[in-house]
């Protein structure tokens, strides 16, 4: 009984340390966690709940993007440590991301990339100003679960529409998700995207909805 309570506390401590960005505490807790728990339990009882909490705080404007990124950075280090100990694949779903041709604003896309990685997705990041051909060619080769198209500008919406049309033709089983400053749910529907994520706060829920 006492052991279980201590164990739960340790996972709870890890969760709290990720949320509060306490790198020292994470370093102290991890050796014990690794010897006492299986990887899936660490992820489902501490890491993912912590990230969910951080994203919820962001959605409720109780925190901002730098703290989300720092928590993701801690999680990336945890996953690296876990992987060194026992190679694993967290999810068998993959994401292909990029900023559409004509747009060079990639900060939002980079944040989305890191959130996906934090939740264990395999991510291929094509970068910014990516041509429609490059999206289609890469998607055809890798058959990702989702292609995420980002655009911050009104002037590149046409390119998003063309990319969606081409991707649906070439990789019909791949879901297409859109996001970015100029995007909204109505426009996503109009462009025939399968999904839309407003920000990092709702990204994982929208992704799970698409992949369920």
């Amino acid at each position, binding site marked *: 009984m006492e052991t279980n309570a201590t164990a739960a506390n340790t996972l709870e401590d890890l969760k709290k340390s990720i949320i509060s*960005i306490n790198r020292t505490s994470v370093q102290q807790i991890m050796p014990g966690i690794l010897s006492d728990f299986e990887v899936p339990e660490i992820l489902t009882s501490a890491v993912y709940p912590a990230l969910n909490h951080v994203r919820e*705080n962001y959605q*409720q*404007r*109780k*925190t*901002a*993007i*730098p*703290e989300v*990124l*720092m928590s*993701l*950075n801690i999680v990336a280090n945890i996953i690296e440590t876990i992987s060194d100990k026992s190679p694993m694949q967290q999810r068998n779903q993959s994401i292909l991301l990029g900023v559409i041709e*004509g*747009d*060079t*604003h990639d*900060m939002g896309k*980079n*944040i989305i990339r*890191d959130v996906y990685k934090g939740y264990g997705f395999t991510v291929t990041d094509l970068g910014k100003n990516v041509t429609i051909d490059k999206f289609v060619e890469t998607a055809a080769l890798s058959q990702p679960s989702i292609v995420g198209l980002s655009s911050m*500008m*009104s*002037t*590149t919406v046409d*390119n998003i529409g063309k990319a969606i049309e081409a991707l649906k033709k070439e990789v019909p089983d791949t879901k297409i998700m859109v996001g970015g400053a100029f995007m909204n749910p109505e426009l996503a529907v109009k462009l025939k995207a399968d999904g839309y994520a407003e920000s990092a706060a709702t990204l994982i829920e929208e992704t799970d909805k698409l992949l369920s």
Partner: protein
Amino acid sequence: MKNIELTDLTLQQEDVFRCMGYGKDASPHAETVQRYEALIKRIPETGPVKGAFTEVSVTGINETGVDTPHGFIKSERLAKISEGVTEMVFGLITAGETFDMMGESFPDMVDAFLWDSIGSALVEEGVAQLLKTIESEKKKTLSLPFSPGYCDWDLTGQKIIFSAFDSSPLGINISSDSLVMSPVKSVSFISCLDVSGSSHNPCRYCSLKNCFMRRKG
């Protein structure tokens, strides 16, 4: 056209943090503040923020927008603040290519994000300083700046502004299709010269009360 180097820009930490989304319910983590302070010290490495402006005559105003020798600016809200205005200023500000390159060199996303936010604040402060300089030089009141892609002015307005300058002014280029500016940390804007006090702020006529770009006054 006149070029100006804005060498004494000062960023207020709380203003930059507010633009990042911090407020009364969200304070930055100590590590965020520490990183921000370290990055601020690196701004001089990127060279001065540069500005350019040119005066443009207003050739007509109707309820749908304002006409200039460089093209018709379609914006009902601009038309409202332009009543009686005969001159405008077209302006450009850039933090420069080195600023962009440094942002791309950060391997850490937190630093990259903070640098990006600092860059946005820096060029906005550059616009404010340039307007003050013009006001002082011309002894006239300027409206708050109005940029293509914001409010009810389409991003295609970039073409109108850039047509008033030589090619690649301050080293800024716009892509022909998407009209994105390079360097990314650049701002193009217009401002009405000699406006009356009540017409100073185009945000007065906008219904988006919660817009994060909304300006007081």
